[in-house]
C-alpha cells in the first residue's frame, strides 16, 4: 500500500473538497432560484424577489451616496439622513461599492452565494475544531441543516436567501457561542476572531447578539456558582466585558443618531402604544419539554450536566422570554415573530443534544427495555404531526398557499423534535440505516436532491410556473437617464405595479418621487410632505389633479414644483398615459421613447 508523504494532511484535503462542494451547492442554488426570477423579469439585473431585500439593497445604495443617505435613499428631500439603528452589512456593502466605483448590486451574487457558504463553513469548522466532532459528519450535518431551512414552514428560508438579515450575523453568533461554551481560544488569531465575532454580532444584528450575551452570562453564572472553575470564570468574565463594551459602543451610536430617522422614532412609539397582553403557550411548552427531558435523563442515567445540556437550556430560554416579552414591555416589538433568526442554531443544538442523549440511552439497560414504547410513542406523535396541517413543520409540496407569514418558532421546533429524534435514533440504532447514512454517494445524492428541490421549490413558490411572465420595461430607459439626467434629479415612476420594487434608485443616481418604503421611512401619512406626494400621484393617475387643491399649491405649476420633480417615467402602453398628458399638457415634454417606456421632462 502506498503511504502518503509525511506532509500530506488528509483532513486538510477533505476540508478543501468540502468547501468546493459547498460552493457548488450554493452556486447551484443561486442559479436555480434567481435564474427563475431572471426568467420572469427577462433579465438577470432585475431579480430582487421581495420587499425587505429591496429595502436592504436600497440602504446600501444610500450608504454609497454622497452625502450618505441610508436613512431614506429614495427621496431628494431626505438626502443626508442616516439610519438610527445601523444596518451594518448594508452600510459596509454600500461603502465597498463606493470605494470600488461599482453598483451595489455588483455584490448581489457575491452575497447570495457567499453568505450561506460562510454560515455553513463557520458552523462546520466550529463543530469540528471547537466542539471536537469528526470532520465529515460536521460538514455534512451543517450542510443538511442549512438546506433544510428551505423545507420548513414560515420564512426560515430567509436565513439562506435574503439580503442582508438574518443570514449576515449568524456566523458571528456561532463562533461566540462555541467559544463561550468550550473555553478560551488558544492562539492570538482565535482570540482576535472571538473578540471580532462578538463586536460583529452586536453591530450586524443585535437581536442575534442577545443569544450570545445570554449564553455567556448564564455560563458565567454556572461556572462561578456550580462548577466553581476559576479559570473559566475569568475567561467568561473577559468575554462578558467585551460584550458590554461592544454593546455600549452600539448603544452610544444609536443615542447619537436618535434624531436622524423619523421612522425609528415613530415605530418604537407606535409599537409601545400597541398594547398586548397574552401568554404564548407553545414557547412555554417547548421549554418545559426541554427541561423535563434534561432532568429525566439526568435522573435515569445519573450523569453530570454536559455542556450541551447547558447550551440547550440557556439558548432555548429565549423562546419563552421573547415569545412572552409583551407581558413585561406591554408590546412584543417583533421579538416573538423574529425568533426564526435562531432556527438554524436551535436545530443544530437539538441535533447534537439528541445524538448525545440517544446514544447514552442506547447504552442504558433500563432505557433499552422501554425503547419499544418510547420509540413507538414518538412514531405515533410524528404521524399525527405530519398528517395534521396545523402542526406539520414542513412545506406542503414546496408551494404554500399562504402568504409571507412568520411561523411561531416554538411551535415549529416542537413539531420538529420528533423528526430529529427519530432520524438520530434510526441512525444510531439500525445498522443498515447507519451504513446508508455513512455512504458517500448517498450523502452526495441527498444533498444534491435537497439543493434541487429546496431552491427549486422556493423558486416555484415565488414564481409559479403558470404565472404570466412580466418582462421589466425600463432597462433602456434607465440607461438613457444615466446618460442624460443629472445626479439626484427626481423621477416619478408611474405604473403602480412597478413601484413595489422600483429599481430606479438602484440602477441610476436619481431619486424617486414616491416609493412605499420611502414613505414609511419618512414617517408615513402623519407628515404633510407625504400627503403632498401621495395626493399628487393619486390624482395624477385618476385624472383629478385639476380639481384637487394640494395644501399651499393651487395652480398646476405650483403642484408640480412644491416637491422636486424632473422626469416622469411611464411604460407603454399604459392606461394612465392619456390622463397624464391631458392634465400636465405644456408642462411636460417627451424626451425619450422606446418600445416599452416613455420619459417626459417636467419643465
Amino acid at each position, binding site marked *: 500500500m502506498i503511504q502518503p508523504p509525511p506532509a500530506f494532511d488528509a483532513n486538510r484535503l477533505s476540508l478543501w473538497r468540502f468547501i468546493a462542494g459547498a460552493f457548488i451547492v450554493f452556486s447551484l442554488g443561486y442559479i436555480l432560484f434567481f435564474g427563475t426570477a431572471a426568467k420572469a423579469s427577462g433579465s438577470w439585473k432585475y431579480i430582487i424577489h421581495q420587499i425587505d431585500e429591496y429595502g436592504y439593497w436600497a440602504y446600501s445604495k444610500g450608504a454609497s451616496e454622497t452625502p450618505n443617505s441610508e436613512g431614506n435613499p429614495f427621496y431628494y428631500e431626505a438626502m443626508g439622513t442616516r439610519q438610527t439603528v445601523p444596518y451594518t452589512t448594508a452600510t459596509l456593502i454600500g461603502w465597498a461599492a463606493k470605494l470600488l466605483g461599482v453598483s451595489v448590486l455588483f455584490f448581489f451574487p457575491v452575497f447570495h452565494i457567499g453568505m450561506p457558504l460562510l454560515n455553513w463553513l463557520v458552523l462546520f469548522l466550529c463543530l469540528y475544531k471547537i466542539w471536537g466532532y469528526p470532520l465529515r459528519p460536521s460538514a455534512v450535518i451543517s450542510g443538511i441543516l442549512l438546506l433544510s431551512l428551505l423545507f420548513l414552514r414560515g420564512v426560515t428560508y430567509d436565513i439562506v436567501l435574503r439580503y442582508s438579515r438574518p443570514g449576515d450575523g449568524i456566523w458571528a453568533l456561532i463562533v461566540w457561542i462555541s467559544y463561550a461554551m468550550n473555553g478560551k481560544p488558544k492562539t492570538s488569531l482565535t482570540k482576535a476572531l472571538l473578540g471580532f465575532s462578538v463586536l460583529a454580532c452586536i453591530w450586524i444584528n443585535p437581536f442575534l447578539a442577545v443569544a450570545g450575551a445570554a449564553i455567556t452570562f448564564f455560563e458565567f453564572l454556572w461556572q462561578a456558582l456550580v462548577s466553581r472553575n476559576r479559570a473559566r470564570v475569568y475567561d467568561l468574565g473577559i468575554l462578558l466585558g467585551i460584550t458590554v463594551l461592544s454593546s455600549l459602543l452600539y448603544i452610544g451610536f444609536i443615542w447619537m443618531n436618535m434624531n436622524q430617522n423619523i421612522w425609528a422614532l415613530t415605530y418604537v412609539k407606535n409599537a409601545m402604544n400597541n*398594547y398586548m397582553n397574552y401568554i404564548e403557550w407553545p414557547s412555554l411548552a417547548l421549554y418545559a419539554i426541554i427541561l423535563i427531558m434534561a432532568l429525566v435523563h439526568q435522573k435515569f442515567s445519573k450523569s453530570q450536566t454536559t455542556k450541551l445540556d447547558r447550551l440547550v437550556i440557556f439558548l432555548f430560554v429565549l423562546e419563552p422570554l421573547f415569545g412572552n416579552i409583551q407581558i413585561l414591555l406591554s408590546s412584543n416589538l417583533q421579538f416573538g415573530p423574529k425568533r426564526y433568526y435562531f432556527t438554524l442554531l436551535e436545530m443544530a443544538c437539538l441535533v447534537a443534544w439528541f445524538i448525545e442523549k440517544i446514544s447514552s440511552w442506547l447504552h442504558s439497560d433500563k432505557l433499552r427495555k422501554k425503547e419499544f414504547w418510547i420509540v413507538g410513542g414518538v412514531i405515533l406523535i410524528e404521524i399525527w404531526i405530519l398528517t395534521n396541517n396545523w402542526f406539520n413543520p414542513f412545506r406542503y409540496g414546496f408551494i404554500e398557499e399562504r402568504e409571507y407569514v412568520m411561523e411561531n418558532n416554538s411551535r415549529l421546533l416542537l413539531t420538529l423534535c420528533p423528526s430529529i429524534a427519530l432520524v438520530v435514533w434510526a441512525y444510531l440504532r439500525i445498522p443498515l440505516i447507519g451504513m446508508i447514512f455513512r455512504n458517500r454517494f448517498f450523502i452526495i445524492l441527498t444533498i444534491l436532491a435537497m439543493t434541487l428541490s429546496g431552491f427549486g421549490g422556493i423558486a416555484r413558490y415565488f414564481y409559479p410556473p403558470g404565472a404570466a411572465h412580466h418582462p421589466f420595461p425600463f432597462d433602456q430607459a434607465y440607461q438613457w437617464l444615466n446618460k442624460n439626467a443629472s445626479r439626484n434629479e427626481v423621477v416619478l415612476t408611474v405604473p*403602480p*405595479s412597478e413601484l413595489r420594487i422600483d429599481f430606479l434608485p438602484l440602477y441610476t443616481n436619481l431619486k424617486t418621487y414616491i416609493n412605499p418604503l420611502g414613505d*414609511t421611512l419618512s414617517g408615513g401619512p402623519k407628515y404633510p410632505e407625504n400627503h403632498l406626494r401621495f395626493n399628487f400621484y*393619486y390624482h395624477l393617475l*385618476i385624472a383629478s389633479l385639476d380639481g384637487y387643491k394640494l395644501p399651499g399649491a393651487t395652480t398646476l405649476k405650483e403642484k408640480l414644483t412644491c416637491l422636486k420633480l424632473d422626469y416622469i417615467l411611464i411604460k407603454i402602453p399604459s392606461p394612465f398615459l392619456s390622463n397624464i398628458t391631458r392634465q400636465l399638457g405644456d408642462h411636460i415634454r417627451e424626451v425619450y421613447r422606446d418600445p416599452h417606456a416613455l420619459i417626459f421632462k417636467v419643465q
Partner: protein
Amino acid sequence: MENHRKLWQRQNAMRALSKRMIALVITMSLVAPQAFALSPENNGEIANWYALGNQYLRQKNYSEAITAADKILVQEPSNVLGYELLIKAFLELHNLPALVLAIRTAQQHGLRNLSLYKMLARSLFTVGGFAPALDALVNIEEMMEERSVGNTLANKGNSP
C-alpha cells in the same frame, strides 16, 4: 396604566370587529352567490340596509354600520355598497388590518369597481401610508388596463 387599559379596550373592540369581518368572509365563502339571485325585494332590502348603515356612520355607531354591511354582503357578496360601508367604518376606526382584509375579500369575489378602489386607495393611505394604498392602486391599474384593452377590441370590431 389607565392609558394602557383604554388602548387595550380599544384594541379588543377592534379585534372583535376584525373577527366579525373574518366571520363574514367565511360566511360569504360558504354561501354560494347563486343561492341569492337578486329579486326586487332583495334590492329593496339592500338599499334599506345601505341607508341605515350610512345613518349609523353619521351617528358614529360603527359597530352597527358594520352589521348593516354584513347584512348586505351576506345577501350579495360582491355588492359594492356593502364594501363601501365596511371601508368607511374601518377607516373611521383606523383599523388597517380590517381594511386590508376588506380589499382582499372584495378581490376574491371578483369585485371590479373603479370608484370603490379609488376610495380604498385614499383610505388605506390615510390609515397605513403608501405601502397598503399601493395595493389598491395596482388594482386600479389592472382595471384600467382591462378597460383600455376592451375599448381597443371594441374599436377594432367597429372598424371596417
